[in-house]
């Protein structure tokens, strides 16, 4: 075995856990957006086209933006505006909710970080 072989083996061994880590725990890009609202069945939305979504909850209309594979609440009729101030979600597992208006956004990837979220 030459020195080059040993270096190669080392590189491969180093690369394997990094690949696994990236795929299982890293900032995995999302496949789609899952929207849940209290009065409607959950809806999936593609992240491939930029647009505004108008979603109606018990308090009124929330506006959600999809842009460049990311999503965020643009406006919501809640008083606290926590959802709007929380900003963009950009990777799989990202979660944002307007609880008063009972609308939640989840970016879904192939390997979600959590099996369920408690709140």
């Amino acid at each position: 075995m030459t020195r080059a072989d040993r270096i190669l083996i080392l590189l491969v061994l180093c690369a394997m856990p990094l690949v696994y880590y990236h795929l299982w725990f890293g900032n995995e890009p999302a496949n789609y957006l899952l929207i849940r609202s209290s009065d409607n069945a959950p809806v999936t939305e593609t992240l491939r086209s930029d647009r505004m979504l108008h979603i109606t909850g018990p308090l009124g209309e929330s506006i959600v933006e999809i842009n460049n594979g990311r999503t965020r609440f643009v406006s919501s009729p809640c008083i606290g505006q926590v959802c709007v101030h929380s900003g963009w979600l950009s990777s799989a597992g990202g979660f944002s909710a307007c609880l008063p208006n009972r609308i939640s956004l989840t970016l879904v990837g192939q390997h979600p970080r959590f099996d369920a979220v408690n709140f």
Partner: protein
Amino acid sequence: MTKHLIRLGCLLLALAIGGCQQAKDPVFHDQFFAFGTLIEISLYGVDTQLAESISKEIEQDFIGMHASWHAWQPGALSSLNEQLSRLEPATIDPAILPLLKEAGRLSQRSEGLFNPVIGNLIALWGFHDNPLPVGTLPDSIAISDLVKQAPTISDITIDDNFITSTNPSIAFDLGGFAKGYAIDRAIDRLRESGVENAIINAGGDLRVIGQHGDRPWRIGIRHPRKNGILASIEASGDTSIFTSGDYERFFEVDGQRYHHIIDPRTGYPANSTTSVTVIHSNAATADAAATALFVAGPDQWLSTARNMGIRYVMLIDKQGTIHINPAMQSRIHFEPGLDAQISLSAPLQ
């Protein structure tokens, strides 16, 4: 030799990537609306046809329970409340009898901080209905009058399936408890059907049984004030995780938040807590305890948790300080960059 190693390296990397991408999700997911929230069912390793059938049965159960247990829509509980308001002895519908008995037991253990008979106070604040009141507060004299009447579980007597009351202000409202009890019933049905690995998640409050294949279920706990996750818990076996928070149902008047967790001692929303997370094997107990500990607040939560047999608690107070007992601290994993102060309590047991 080098060529062979390159091929070997490429093969291993391809297996690593391909193996991950081709893994089929072994979890069946279903969702439906009941109890005014989204119910999510996750079943691990169950045949799809069987999973769909079980999920439909659970959905029907939830819808039936909600109808029977609703205090403010025509049904068994609202009829009972009408009779109790007239101090008439009443027969309890078998559909709600075990529910009321368990609520009474938990209320006594919480020393009344979880109080399932303050329905009139809940209604006065408007938290029994949708949408919530905007811009107005209930009359302070009406609140004071109800607090003076002090309806507690000790005002009623349940003998066999008969109930009598000595306090006309008694009105059952099981909002702080029914969801947990319903989850327990759903878990019972899953087990009867042979399902050993599952999550029932009712609007963010959940119970898990078994695990996700060869690893525990991974549960995130949402931050009560910021977007995203505050912490995570790995759960397996039989674990209920319930959180009561002031962000769930509230309205604001003159910049002040009035939320739905009413302190029965004052008649006003409990004002020293932001959220309480409780872990317990039984969902109904976790549900009632989360409400009671929220009302107890940072000064009293430890004694209340002990009285109720709770071993894992995390309470976040109004200043953002995280109060946590050692056993809970050892189970929970805070997200990197946590900027809150942590106050470690004495052990609970």
